[in-house]
């Protein structure tokens, strides 16, 4: 046994006795017993039911089952293995973070084809959740750009796959939340960008119906759209918000210098629950709305503020108090009609669900990846502080989403019931079939797969 494996064993064995010390959690900070190991060499990592990256999924996707409380984090396996300056093709170990990637490649004029709203994610996590960004309506999900994955499958073999190689395994792994195997390496092309700056236009929108209409219109002209909604305002201004449209700035309009990142700001400790209570949420949203004083604004913004506004406060999840938070993100299909967002908000407000942030994005075509989240329509994301009634709130929202033909995003979920998930996910059976081909005993699993896929605990 290698020394690493020996220590892993030691820690693993001790973890039962010291369970109060060894806790792991997702971004939502609901802790469960478990040990996280961070080896540098993933090929020699101890045998674990699950890999994880930076733990930025909110719920239990990255948490190991209670019967085998060991999860391997890839963050120390972060080497760039190949980069072609001409084609932009990049191959790297799965633990490479988007933060490191941007630091290296933005100055060289390259950017990831798809980025989520935080830089603190790994390539492995971006593949496993098949992340989407503000450009989904034009560029699809991250997985649609991946050329090759190297995966350690259940029998210990390392398999190369891609859209044209072991396609089934590939399509199950992209968006498959770590359940088909351990992703070791990822290969995909970076996109060339004209400058590292963004040209942005923003617009104050009086209500949610107008917001959705303008969001869909903007999709024809803008490669990147996103927006924020105040879901506490009522009546005719229900869902008033700000719509942001952007594209990479051209050389003649951007500053000549390279944008600097802000220094990290940290939340020093877990905040009392009241900090993000209803009143402060109301004040925040009111302030945000009216700080956009002019109806329309335009200008050059730096990419960090544009793509990763929340990253400036390092541990902002501590702001949600001891019980943590959950994010509810669903997609409502176009078929649900242009007023679906309003009906969703009406349901939310009638249930007293306060959300600090409510982000509505446009979704383009569905990917071929078996469990990829987006489908043509709009995605709504809410950050919700966990309270006694959170389960009931999520249940009600899920009933609505099922009735409208939508679905939820696994990377955010912690509360959905299995029967709800099965009703919103007709692709589940096919995913499970492929999964069993590669992993007949379902060796790979997470707390989430036990909760939603019916895996043995």
């Amino acid at each position, binding site marked *: 046994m290698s*020394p*690493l494996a*020996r*220590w*892993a064993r*030691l*820690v693993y064995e001790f973890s039962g006795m010291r369970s109060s010390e060894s806790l792991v959690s997702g971004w939502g900070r609901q802790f469960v017993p478990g040990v996280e*190991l*961070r*080896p*540098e*060499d993933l090929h020699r990592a101890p045998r674990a039911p699950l890999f994880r990256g930076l733990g930025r999924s909110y719920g239990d996707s990255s948490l190991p089952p209670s019967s085998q409380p060991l999860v391997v984090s890839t963050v*120390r396996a972060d*080497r*760039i*293995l*190949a*980069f072609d300056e001409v084609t932009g093709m*990049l191959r790297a*170990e799965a633990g490479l973070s988007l933060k490191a990637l941007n630091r*290296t490649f933005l100055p060289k004029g390259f950017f990831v084809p798809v980025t989520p709203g935080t830089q603190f994610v790994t390539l492995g996590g971006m593949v496993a959740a098949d992340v989407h960004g503000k450009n989904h309506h034009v560029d699809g999900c991250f997985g649609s750009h991946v050329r090759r994955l190297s995966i350690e499958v259940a029998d210990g073999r390392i398999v190369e796959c891609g859209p044209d190689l072991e396609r089934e395994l590939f399509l199950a792994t992209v968006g498959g939340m770590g359940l088909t195997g351990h992703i070791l390496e990822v290969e995909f092309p970076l996109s060339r960008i004209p400058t590292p700056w963004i040209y942005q236009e923003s617009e104050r929108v009086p209500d949610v119906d107008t917001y959705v209409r303008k969001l869909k219109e903007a999709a024809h002209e803008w490669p990147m759209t996103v927006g924020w909604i105040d879901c506490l305002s009522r009546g005719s201004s229900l869902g008033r918000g700000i719509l942001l449209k952007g594209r990479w700035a051209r050389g003649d309009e951007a500053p000549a210098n390279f944008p600097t990142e802000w220094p990290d700001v940290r939340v020093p400790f877990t905040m009392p629950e009241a900090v993000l209570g209803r009143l402060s949420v109301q004040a925040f949203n009111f302030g945000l709305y009216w700080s956009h004083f002019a109806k329309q604004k335009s200008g050059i913004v730096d990419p960090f503020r544009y793509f990763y506004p929340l990253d400036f406060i390092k541990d902002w999840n501590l702001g949600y108090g001891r019980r943590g938070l959950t994010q509810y993100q669903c997609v409502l299909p176009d078929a649900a009609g242009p007023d679906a967002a309003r009906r969703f908000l009406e349901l939310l407000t009638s249930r007293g669900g306060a959300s600090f942030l409510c982000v509505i994005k446009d979704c383009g075509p569905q990917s071929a990846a078996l469990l990829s989240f987006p489908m043509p329509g709009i995605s709504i994301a809410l950050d919700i502080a966990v309270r006694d009634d959170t389960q009931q709130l999520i249940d009600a929202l899920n009933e609505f989403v099922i009735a409208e033909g939508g679905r939820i995003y696994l990377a955010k979920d912690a509360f959905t019931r299995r029967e709800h998930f099965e009703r919103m996910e007709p692709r589940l059976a096919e995913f499970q079939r492929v999964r069993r081909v590669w992993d007949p005993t379902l060796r790979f699993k997470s707390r989430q797969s036990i909760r939603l896929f019916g895996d043995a605990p």
Partner: protein
Amino acid sequence: MKAVVLGATRGMGRALARKLAERGDSVAVLGRDSAELERSGADLRARGAPGIRVATIACDLEKPDGFKAALDAAEDALLGLDTVIVTAGLFATQEALEADPALLARVLTVDFSNTVLFCEEARKKLLGRGGGTLCVFSSVAGDRGRKPVVLYGAAKAGLSRYLEGLDHRYRGQGLKTVCVKPGFVRTGMTEGLKAPPFAGEPEAVADQVLTAIDLGLPEVYAPAMWGLVMGVIKGLPRFVMRRVGF
């Protein structure tokens, strides 16, 4: 700078080599596993500033015969050499070393004798070129005879003394010696061990070490807090050290 890093494929060596390459220094990566060397070489080329040289050269701390050739090859590949950094080494717990004499022999040999032999080759090479910097990772474990690190600490104690002497003897001739004493740093090497207070991250340690190299500081504790901690431990009387567990 034109630097050799023995041990750059992992942990603190990896972090340090990246910082060097990113700021524009040429780096020769020395290590024993050729596949690992290739991967780390590619990583440094992709991350490094434009125009730097990156070389990968096989060198095994368990095979002293290859030391001179590896340093010669590095000098050739980088078109010169002014800095030699050694982060490689073996670690095992006191219990493992007490139980396994073969492992003990390996650890003592690699962490003391062979590291010194490598440094001697580096010393000759750098002095022959008119001077430079030799930066070697020892450990706080060598500062005091302590229960959990008797054997590993003994090898590191010897290494630290050697480096101190080297600095006194040759600084006047232009060879600066930097002895790095890492406390507990979270790397693959310490993975799974329970981290004590003031545990460091490899990137932060690399920043500190880089500053020490640039300024030619003879000794650096990393994280710096360990300097204070060891200061206290060094001052404790024996009857206390016999009782406490650290």
